């Protein structure tokens, strides 16, 4: 017998991958264009910040001029996600070429608000 549809009440079928996927934040997000996400700076190279927001690839953002000095490794930032993976197909190629990074606009540091609180 099939399990009941977990539409209204999210029964905790944690062991089933299909249920996990359906409840996952990735599916909740949908298309990644223009979505505001929270990221964490994982690597800093002078003016470039490598931010991991939980997607497949991290994104590289330039340090903002104002208030950028506080952003160090481990600081949480807000991003507007534009592309989860930068790919393009060149002329004569059979498959896409990927840059192995995402594209996002840095909106600023995450406010002091506790991200786990439900409003």
């Amino acid at each position, binding site marked *: 017998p099939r399990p009941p549809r977990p*539409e209204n009440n999210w029964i905790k079928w944690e062991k089933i991958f299909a249920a996990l996927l359906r409840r996952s*934040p990735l599916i*909740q997000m949908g298309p990644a264009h*223009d*979505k*505001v996400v929270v990221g964490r700076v994982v690597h800093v190279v002078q003016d470039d910040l490598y931010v991991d927001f*939980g997607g497949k690839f991290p994104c590289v953002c330039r340090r903002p001029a104002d208030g950028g000095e506080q952003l160090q490794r481990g600081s949480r930032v807000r991003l507007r996600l534009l592309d989860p993976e930068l790919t393009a197909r060149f002329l004569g190629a059979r498959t896409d070429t990927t840059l192995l990074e995402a594209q996002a606009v840095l909106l600023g540091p995450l406010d002091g608000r506790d991200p786990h609180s*439900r409003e």
Partner: protein
Amino acid sequence: MKWHFVQNVSTCMHCSSDLTSPRWWCCPPMRNHVMSPLAIELVVPTLRLTLQHSRWQYCTLALAFSPFKQKEEEGDGSGGEMAGSRLERFGTVFSRVRDLMRSGVIQKADKPIWYDVYEVFPPKREPLYVKQQSRPAVNKQDPVPEIFYREDEVRAKFYEQYGTGPRPLDLSNPNFVSTCQRFVTKFNELRNHSDLSDSALFEETGKALLSEGVVLKRRGAVPAESSRDAVLDLKLTDMLAELQNAASSPSTHNPAEPELPVPTQS
């Protein structure tokens, strides 16, 4: 393309020219060019010796000829066997060997066994290397279907109207419940309990969430423009109905009238 090589061993550094001939004959200004057959034909008669030019990058190779091996295919691209390498996949095996023999690289004694046989009984299809031109199939059906859920309709409408919402998404947290997800669960609850249409339910859910403390801000001024176009359309159809009103009953265009709002302010 013809490949010609110097017969004698006294070579200059740059190319395989004989040192007795003037240097500029064998080392022309063009460095990385392949000499076209035409150029070779022009240059060759002017040279005293039967000196021809091979490709520039091969000039530096020592052209002390080793006895040509039987199997030309096994050319490993090394220097001594420049002629035997399949680097460029020029022509067929037969044409390569034939040209090498004609130019004198391969001696008659070193002729491969299969040469005579091939000459008399060539294959149906000349074994030229043909590059595979496999374009990705444009009409191939994607065997992997898209993953869509029922709540995706609600999500799409939510994102279109409200954007991401007041709270940014945290993808790293597996148990994260976004504003959109709360909206969806509330929507489904209300749909089970009440019987309203989808658009009305949408508004209801917004109000319910507002009562819980979630403030949803509409994004963009898109709805205003679309309503303006709708008004223009209505006016035109209205006028058309009036023009055709001679015979038809007037009730057809009455429902349209109340919906015509005050002329929109830009």
